[in-house]
């Protein structure tokens, strides 16, 4: 007997596997992962949380520019990224530091990017992640296009793109999903509904009952999932990916996943959330913190104990410290980089401007230029 796909549920009916204490909710099936995969998932959550804290403090210390924290949102990132196959593609926005790490892009590169260096936004060739997009929702049509290209080439690739609740109001969300439905492309549209778009709460972003329900307007499935439950996110994404690759007769490939979650911290380090929301609300959502939930589940399952937690914490600390060390010891980009990647071949006018910059620096020295 084939169980009804989670994708077929009413979008208001949120998929959940772990309760707030890490117990398995009634009727839920735990995804078929090996123990070490569960532990890996846990380690990633811890890695993300720790990375986030360190990144915020780097910014505070003036060692990094503006940074968008993700505490509270780790489960969505890890659960979804782990559900992809090696050949699948990720099109991120700007907050998925951890999802990118799961997919093999180094945390050091992520830091480098937030330190103002484009080199950090160029994933290595073997990492199937697109450069981060800052303009809201604009990566959505890119993902549709890439998925479409994969399909046209007869490849087996699935493209997953992340965006926020706020992004669903942009025209590009609409156009990107509409194309995906019409051309039936193998894409997963993963909405990290963290309840806030800077200061605008979800309920003022749209009058629609759910965000997942918006999928209906494009003819494909939408599903709401508890975005702070890594197992539920994993399961939903996995089904969406499987359907994208090989849809059942009569079904379209794309899926809109609404992962309901909360950002514990500020929108970015430049933001002060106390202006627009109550601490109480934050506290209520902290009850859903994915880390203790998965930890509870793993302890119950007998694959995690105090000792392993400590080992994981140590290794995570070391990994983040190394990433920071790498990022901070990376040379600042040469000013000549300004001109290096505008076109494949540098046009004459840019060569002249580059020469002008060289002369200028020679004439004045960088110190005098920027006293």
């Amino acid at each position, binding site marked *: 007997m084939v169980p009804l796909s989670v994708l077929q549920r009413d979008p208001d009916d949120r998929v959940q596997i772990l309760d707030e204490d890490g117990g398995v909710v009634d009727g839920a099936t735990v995804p078929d992962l090996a123990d070490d995969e569960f532990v890996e998932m846990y380690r990633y959550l811890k890695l993300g949380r720790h990375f986030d804290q360190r990144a915020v403090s780097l910014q505070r210390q003036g060692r990094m520019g503006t940074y968008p924290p993700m505490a509270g949102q780790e489960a969505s990132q890890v659960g979804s990224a782990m559900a992809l196959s090696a050949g699948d593609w990720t099109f991120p926005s700007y907050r998925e530091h951890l999802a990118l790490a799961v997919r093999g892009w180094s945390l050091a590169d992520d830091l480098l990017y937030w330190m*103002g260096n484009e080199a950090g936004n160029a994933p290595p060739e073997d990492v199937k992640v697109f450069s981060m997009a800052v303009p809201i*929702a604009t990566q959505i049509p890119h993902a549709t296009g890439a998925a479409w290209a994969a399909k046209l080439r007869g490849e087996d690739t699935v493209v997953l793109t992340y965006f926020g609740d706020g992004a669903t*109001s942009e025209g590009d969300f609409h156009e990107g999903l509409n194309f995906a439905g019409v051309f039936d492309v193998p894409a997963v549209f993963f909405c990290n509904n963290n309840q806030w778009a800077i200061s605008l709460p979800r309920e003022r972003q749209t009058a629609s009952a759910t965000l997942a329900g918006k999928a209906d307007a494009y003819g494909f499935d939408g599903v709401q999932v508890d975005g702070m439950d890594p197992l539920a996110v994993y399961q939903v994404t996995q089904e969406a990916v499987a359907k994208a690759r090989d849809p059942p007769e009569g079904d379209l490939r794309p899926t809109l996943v609404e992962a309901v979650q909360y950002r514990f911290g500020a929108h970015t380090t430049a933001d002060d959330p106390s202006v627009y929301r109550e601490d109480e609300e934050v506290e209520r959502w902290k009850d859903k913190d994915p880390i203790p939930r998965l930890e509870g589940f793993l302890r119950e399952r007998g694959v995690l104990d105090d000792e392993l937690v400590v080992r994981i914490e140590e290794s995570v600390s070391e990994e983040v410290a190394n990433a920071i060390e790498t990022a901070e010891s990376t040379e600042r980009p040469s000013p000549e980089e300004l001109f290096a990647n505008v076109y494949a071949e540098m046009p004459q006018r840019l060569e002249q401007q580059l020469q002008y910059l060289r002369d200028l620096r020679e004439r004045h020295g960088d110190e005098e230029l920027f006293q």
Partner: protein
Amino acid sequence: MSTERSSQNLTLVQAVRDGLYGEMARDEDVLVMGEDVGRNGGVFRATQGLYEEFGADRVVDTPLAESGIVGTAIGMAAYGLRPVPELQFAGFMYPGFDQIVSHAARLRTRSRGRYTCPITIRAPYGGGIRAPEHHSESKEAFYTHEPGLQVVVPSTPSDAKGLLAAAIRDPDPVVFLEPKLIYRAFREAVPEESYTTELGTAERRREGEDVSVFTWGAMVRPTMEAAEELADEGVDVEVVDLRTLKPMDTDAVVASFEKTGRAAVVHEAPKTGGLAGEIIATIQEESLLYQKAPIARVTGFDVPFPLYALEDYYLPETARIKDGITDAVEF
């Protein structure tokens, strides 16, 4: 530093807020709308306190959709209100670009004056604050090329308040670009009461005899610095702050140029297609016979605005401006 009773010592962003406050108090039809302008008071605090003062109907937190913001503002304006939409950064105006150029700019023409579009589109603009990608754009030339628009860039707190009030009261659309590098760079005495600074008028920031520099926004300060340094070297620089880029005060440009016969234009935007070209073309049309040297363009490079590690190399700074002026003088 004035301590007169009727003036306050404000930063540019405070003056913007003060200008908005004054116009909203003066005219019920004025309303502010945009992303995070309400309860949050704007990501730069340019609308701080307005929500508390005027309520959610007149200080509207909108969904995240720039075309929707500009498009609904146009409908409101046609209906008789005076919306002041804020777009959070100039680099995020483009999703609303179609509504700006295809509708705001054309409504009066299209309807032979039956419908008009008195909106003021505000956006923080320009580089220099170590912001992420797309947050440092200065593409004023996109808007100055579009008939039907007006484009304003203030460079001082008192201008910011007066020009903003004039823009809001103007019967036609204004793109009001606020140089965020100088949002809090300095304070100035700003009258407490409402006042307007006429659109379309340049302001001479420094009188000089040897060479004219035309600039605006955040570039006024390094230009003034360069002028002072050059004064020590015996070069007497005139600095003209255009303030309104469209319609441009070409009389002021031409008058200054005809006096000095030499000029530089300083802007942050990329050189190719930047407003310097327009200014130079105008000068040579009107005053070629006065011209003693090529007019220097001191501008951003023809590259995408870089992430912040390199932004100092992108932006014209005092030394570059000095060099440019010197080229014009020594030719």
